[in-house]
């Protein structure tokens, strides 16, 4: 059995670990609230631009944008959104698992895959498995700027425009609630028609300067907004997953401390008993 001093140091080291995990839990909780607000704030833009794109797809403008035309699929682009930092439970692992499953299925169907990574955790993993990475960005921080994502997104959109990829998907964690995050795989390109009851009757916009230019700008922004939305949701997921993970870590640390305390008390008691019996035996011998 370990001596009293050893157990005491062990307890104090676990206590300091517990302090750290508890602090991280609280930090994650407050960051999660902020991330959720950010999610709410970015929603109007996403909704609006979706509605406009829906109108457009319905109005059949004279110009069919390449983003709307379905082509036979040979190569598939995949944008994978992960967190920059770890210690957030199974969050990133779930994304990896899902992405791998899809990639395997596509590969078996004879498609080639090109990957765009957002977040440093994904960079490590997909580099190791040797995926075909064509764009990457990381260090997005807690408050993502669209500016930081534009580069990576435009690489993928350009590839689509040039015909290097025929389909573009995005994988990210969707925020359901604090305890639940769901991995989502969504198809970005070609655009799937948006069904909406409001759009039944036929009308079209006036375009200025012309439909091609306006549509081009609009659809690029739509794609960016979809990816941005994914990034923001992923950050909210990251913080809530970290909060839950850190909470269970603190709880576990508490359990271990309780157990060790018991062991320590037993050892101490045993030492006292032994000393007493030695004294008594000594006195009897005299």
């Amino acid at each position, binding site marked *: 059995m370990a001596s009293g001093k050893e157990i005491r140091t062990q307890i104090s080291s676990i206590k300091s670990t517990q302090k750290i995990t508890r602090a991280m839990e609280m930090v994650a909780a407050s960051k999660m609230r902020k991330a959720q607000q950010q999610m709410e704030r970015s929603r109007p*833009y996403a909704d609006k631009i979706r509605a*406009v794109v829906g109108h457009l797809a319905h109005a059949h403008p004279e110009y069919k944008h390449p983003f709307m035309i379905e082509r036979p699929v040979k190569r598939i682009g995949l944008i994978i959104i992960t967190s920059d930092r770890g210690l957030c439970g199974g969050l990133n692992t779930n994304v990896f*698992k899902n992405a791998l499953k899809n*990639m395997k299925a596509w590969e078996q169907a004879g498609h080639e895959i090109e990957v765009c990574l957002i977040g440093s955790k994904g960079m490590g993993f997909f580099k190791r498995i040797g995926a075909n990475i*064509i764009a990457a960005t990381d260090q997005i921080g807690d408050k993502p700027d669209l500016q930081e994502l534009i580069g*990576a997104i435009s690489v993928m959109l350009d590839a689509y425009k040039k015909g290097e990829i025929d389909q573009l998907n995005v994988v990210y964690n969707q925020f359901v609630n604090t305890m639940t995050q769901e991995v989502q795989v969504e198809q970005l390109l070609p655009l799937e028609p948006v069904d909406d009851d409001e759009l039944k009757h036929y009308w079209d*916009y006036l375009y200025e300067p012309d439909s091609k230019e306006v549509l081009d*700008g609009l659809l690029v*922004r739509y794609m960016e907004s979809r990816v941005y939305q994914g990034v923001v949701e992923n950050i909210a997921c990251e913080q809530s997953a970290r909060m839950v993970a850190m909470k269970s870590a603190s709880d*576990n640390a508490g359990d271990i401390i309780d157990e060790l305390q018991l062991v320590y008390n037993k050892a101490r008691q045993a030492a006292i008993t032994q000393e007493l019996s030695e004294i008594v035996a000594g006195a009897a011998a005299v």
Partner: protein
Amino acid sequence: MAMTIQVEIVSAEKTIFSGKAEMVFAPASMGEVGISPRHSPLLTSLKPGEVRTHIDNKEDQSFFVSGGILEVQPHKVSVLADTAVRANDLVEAAALEAKERAEKLLSDKKADVDYAKAQAELIEAMAQLRSIERIRKGR
């Protein structure tokens, strides 16, 4: 009171303005446009400049946008404002940077693509974690 039109100015990161106005001015790419209620549906891109909402007897409110899209419906004006600077060469530079990152990442790449193996490893690791958890709980 004169007729009003609902105005919403939103950016990818937040809602900038939402309210009523009698007239809206926006820096469209072909020149500034003024939108009154019941304007016919219009879709146009915006230049960097000032979006102004006007209500009689009140001071105009103005918002700076660095570009974006203006959508007009008879009773609603939506400005989808850009937060990112979108000059062509800037986007290109950002794209190049993203590509460079990817290339740097790939330059010290190891063995061939082997999803099956990676997946097997992943599942094994997860199983290990799960059993560790079970042992810890059972203790």
